[in-house]
């Protein structure tokens, strides 16, 4: 795996028994001992994820707000220093370039967190769109490592390592402070559906911070958790994953993310015309979430069958819910078929899809 990129924690993972795999060109821990057990640990106590492969981009300058409100579909003008916003970033077609988090540090000073597999594509897109705006775009991906501590005991673990008053940081808010002596952006965000924090910090401090978190977490049931559990946790929470529920061909409206598309925000943004037309005319397809009552995993790209057996769509994501002990997933189906019975054929057995409005399990944060 010598061609793969590595986070500063690659050797830390190997020393802790991780199974390392190629994820979007990065050598990443998919699991340490069991995806199912790591998933349950995050729902019951806490998990520590290395997500340093994610990209970070500074957007600064007097027109930073005006530029970002053109670039993304959600309303960046709602932000204030210390506030985080989730948003898709669309093509003129309404398809999605990427989904990202926007952090406002100060007026004229914003910070984006983007998907690892999209860093090069996003940077090229952002630079292209920034022409004519008084903004400076800087790729900071190599400078930052990112640790996520997620689960019911995450607050107690991080609080043991910082003087920052964590109970004063609301969901989707952040402060800048030190954790275990390491300068961090302490962000109350995550991708698991649990309470917790994401800590952006200098790459050179990643091992020291991870070791401090592991030590502080020992009394709080913290486990090392890999990208396998991260994926099943996000699907159980009903969160989209770029390349699955949202793609260059699946718009945020089709994906059920209408709440992130602010057609009336008072700024013309890329994709607005197409998304307005989709909203007005109705979408041809729809992303639905399902469970099956059966343990057989319904994997991505499995054809979805309508009531008469014809193909009306395909599965986008599928896994076994470790909490429900049954297959869960998402599918893209024609809008007309979404109200009718749906099924999939798994090795000759017809399995009915029971549509569910996510989250699949009760969450404290969603």
């Amino acid at each position, binding site marked *: 795996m010598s061609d793969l990129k590595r986070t500063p924690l690659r050797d830390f993972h190997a020393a802790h028994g991780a*199974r390392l795999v190629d994820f979007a060109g990065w050598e990443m821990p998919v*699991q340490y001992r*069991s*995806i199912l057990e790591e998933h349950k640990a995050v729902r019951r106590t806490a998990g520590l994820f290395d997500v340093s492969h994610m990209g970070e981009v500074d957007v600064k300058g007097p027109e930073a707000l005006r530029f970002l409100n053109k670039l993304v579909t959600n309303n960046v003008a709602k932000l204030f220093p210390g506030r985080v916003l989730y948003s898709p970033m669309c093509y003129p077609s309404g398809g999605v370039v990427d989904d990202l988090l926007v952090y406002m540090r100060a007026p004229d000073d914003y910070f984006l967190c983007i998907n690892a597999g999209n860093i090069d594509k996003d940077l090229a897109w952002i630079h292209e769109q920034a022409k004519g705006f008084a903004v400076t775009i800087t790729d900071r991906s190599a400078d930052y490592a990112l640790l996520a501590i997620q689960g019911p005991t995450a607050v107690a673990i991080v609080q043991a390592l910082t003087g920052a008053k964590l109970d004063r940081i609301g969901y989707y808010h952040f402060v800048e402070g030190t954790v275990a002596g390491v300068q961090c952006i302490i962000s109350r965000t995550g991708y698991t559906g649990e309470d917790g924090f994401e800590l952006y910090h200098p790459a050179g401090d990643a091992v020291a911070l991870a070791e401090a978190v592991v030590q502080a977490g020992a009394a709080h049931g913290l486990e090392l958790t890999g990208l396998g559990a991260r994926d*099943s946790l996000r699907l159980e929470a009903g969160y989209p994953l770029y390349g699955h529920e949202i793609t260059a061909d699946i718009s945020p409206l089709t994906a059920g993310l209408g709440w992130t598309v602010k057609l009336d925000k008072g700024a013309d943004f890329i994709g607005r015309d197409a998304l307005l037309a989709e909203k007005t005319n109705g979408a041809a397809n729809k992303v639905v979430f399902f469970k099956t009552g059966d*343990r*057989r*995993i319904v994997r991505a790209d499995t054809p979805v069958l309508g009531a008469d057996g014809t193909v009306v769509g395909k599965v986008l994501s599928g*896994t*076994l819910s470790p909490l429900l002990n049954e297959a869960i997933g998402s599918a893209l189906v024609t809008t007309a078929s979404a109200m009718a019975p749906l099924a999939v054929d798994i090795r000759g057995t017809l399995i009915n899809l029971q549509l569910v409005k996510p989250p699949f399990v009760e969450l404290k944060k969603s």
Partner: protein
Amino acid sequence: MSSVPSDLRYAKSHEWLKPAGDGTATVGITDYAQNSLGDITYVQLPKVGATLAAGQVFGVVESVKAASDLYLPVAGTVIDVNSALDAAPETVNSSAYEAGWILKLKLSDPASVETLLDASAYGKLIG
């Protein structure tokens, strides 16, 4: 690393077979196989009474990662299946050679067992 008990025989496709000495044998997947698959979430068992050829697919084992076919090491008739795996497929992870057995077989030809790898040869294969 992976456990390879010396009293079992092995197929290159990572199933093990344990002859009972009375013309029947127990079949499962190896410790190496369960470890490569990761968390096992479903085991599709064959029907009791089915007569299958050597190398024929007799079931499927699914993990979070993928679904993999299971191949019968030698020809025979299925005389029992481990139905406890329906509710607890993870037993294959925790006890690949004991509680996680998959089926019992009446061998078509007891001598066919000699065509399989012994522990030393299988150990080299996965080495």
